[in-house]
């Protein structure tokens, strides 16, 4: 029984997720240019407090240990604390992902008093210039203020979560120092071309040279840095990075979106990856256990064009979301394939007639109508 066999057991799916992401609302006070959920405005169809608690009851019965709450900005919801407290009281640990706008001193103290609660503050630059270019004017200060408030309230270790972009790869050491300064845990994750990221991907995603830098940095510093296992597409560069190194979507994780739709993961909010809705008969449990989409994801996946590549075992063909939203087939190279096959595939795609090379668009767009464009 080796590590590989654990991974192959997980690939066939479990009776319940190990953890999942739950976007509570599409409303957000920010308009980050890479927002994976294209958030901004609340959706009229969002789950009510009662419906949300019913979902939590299901997760409790399934023995889901831990959920990752996000959005949009989850603290915008009036029942945010009520739902978090209900979750924790039901035996479901919570990590919520926030831009920090609403963590004033008083909220920080309230959060610090709660058990089984983790907080992840989003930050994409170590200075306002780098961060705000992606997340909007004032967002850096907002995040730092939240961190200061949590520290003052003795919250304990929170997480600082960074989406790695072309502009912040040179700042990895500084991010680590920033986290160390707060006694916080640094998390760095891969940018996917999802949501508004579809349009900012070309300008934001790391270059080939930077991918090598990211890999080397993680190998050198990864002991205390979380990655959400999002860099396994880099594994062909050398020994495998720590982690499961597999796509968990529909197998051990999934997304519940604000209107109750269940997707394979937060990076594929599109009909192609929609498994069902929690409002349907049988609720979340039925979608998780019996949906056609998840059943098919739990079958062995074809390596397709990557079958003869020696790196496939290490990189697993990369990320479904990265392939899907750049127009590439799922059974082929990742757009950021470190061997260069992704670039070849993208070039072939670009050479096709427009109708063939048309890329999928995200399922919904909750972006607020007036948006200040940020020049990069």
């Amino acid at each position, binding site marked *: *029984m080796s590590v590989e066999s*654990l991974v192959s*057991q997980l690939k066939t799916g*479990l*009776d*319940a997720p*190990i953890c999942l992401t739950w976007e509570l609302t599409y409303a957000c006070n920010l308009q980050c240019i890479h927002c994976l959920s294209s958030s901004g405005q609340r959706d009229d169809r969002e789950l009510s407090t009662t419906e949300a608690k019913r979902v939590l009851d299901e997760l409790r019965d399934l*023995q889901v*240990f*831990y959920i990752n709450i996000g959005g949009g900005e989850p603290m915008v919801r009036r029942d945010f604390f009520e739902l978090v407290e209900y979750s924790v009281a039901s*035996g479901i*640990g919570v990590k919520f992902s926030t831009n920090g706008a609403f963590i004033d001193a008083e909220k920080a103290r309230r959060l610090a008093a709660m058990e*089984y609660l*983790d907080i992840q503050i989003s930050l994409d630059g170590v200075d306002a210039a780098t961060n705000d270019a992606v997340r909007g004017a004032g967002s850096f200060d907002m995040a730092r203020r939240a961190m200061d408030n949590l520290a003052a309230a003795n919250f304990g270790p929170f997480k600082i979560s960074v989406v790695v972009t072309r502009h912040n790869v040179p700042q990895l050491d500084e991010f680590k120092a920033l986290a160390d300064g707060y006694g916080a845990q640094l998390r760095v994750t891969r940018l996917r071309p999802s949501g508004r990221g579809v349009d900012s991907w070309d300008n934001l995603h790391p270059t080939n040279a930077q991918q090598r830098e990211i890999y080397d940095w993680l190998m050198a510093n990864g002991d205390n840095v979380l990655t959400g296992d999002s860099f396994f597409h880099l594994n062909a560069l050398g020994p495998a990075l720590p982690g499961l190194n597999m796509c968990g979507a529909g197998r051990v994780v999934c997304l519940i979106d604000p209107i109750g739709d269940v997707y394979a993961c937060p990076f594929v909010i599109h009909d192609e990856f929609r498994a069902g809705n929690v409002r349907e008969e049988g609720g979340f449990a039925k979608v998780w256990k019996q949906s056609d989409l998840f059943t098919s994801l739990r079958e062995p996946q074809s390596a397709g064009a990557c079958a003869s590549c020696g790196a496939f075992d290490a990189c697993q063909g990369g990320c479904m979301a990265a392939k899907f939203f750049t127009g590439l087939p799922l059974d082929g190279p990742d757009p950021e394939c470190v061997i260069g096959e992704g670039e070849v595939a993208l070039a072939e795609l670009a050479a096709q007639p427009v109708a063939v090379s048309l890329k999928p668009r995200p399922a919904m767009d909750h972006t607020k109508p007036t948006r200040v464009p940020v020049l990069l």
Partner: protein
Amino acid sequence: MSTDLIAHPLLGVALALHPQVALRPEPFGALAYHYGNRRLVFLKHPDMVAVALALNVHDSFAGALTACGVAEARWPSFVTAFQSLQESQVVVVRTTQEADHS
């Protein structure tokens, strides 16, 4: 890696699952999650699960292994596994008071 079967000290210790640990059965064994330190461990064999659940009602780790019918040839692997569970605080040494309550 293999431990000296007869002499390993852990075998004589009374153990218990940490009170903040939840065990969720899986086809291959179980998932153990420690709510306090967020550590997540896979128990990769049904016998691991049986032993973990039996810890609290036996005066020693060896007693739990015997009660669960684990062949002595497998004990070194179980010792290694439970040492690792101790390291992550999923399993703890029982105090006298806890032993009295079991």
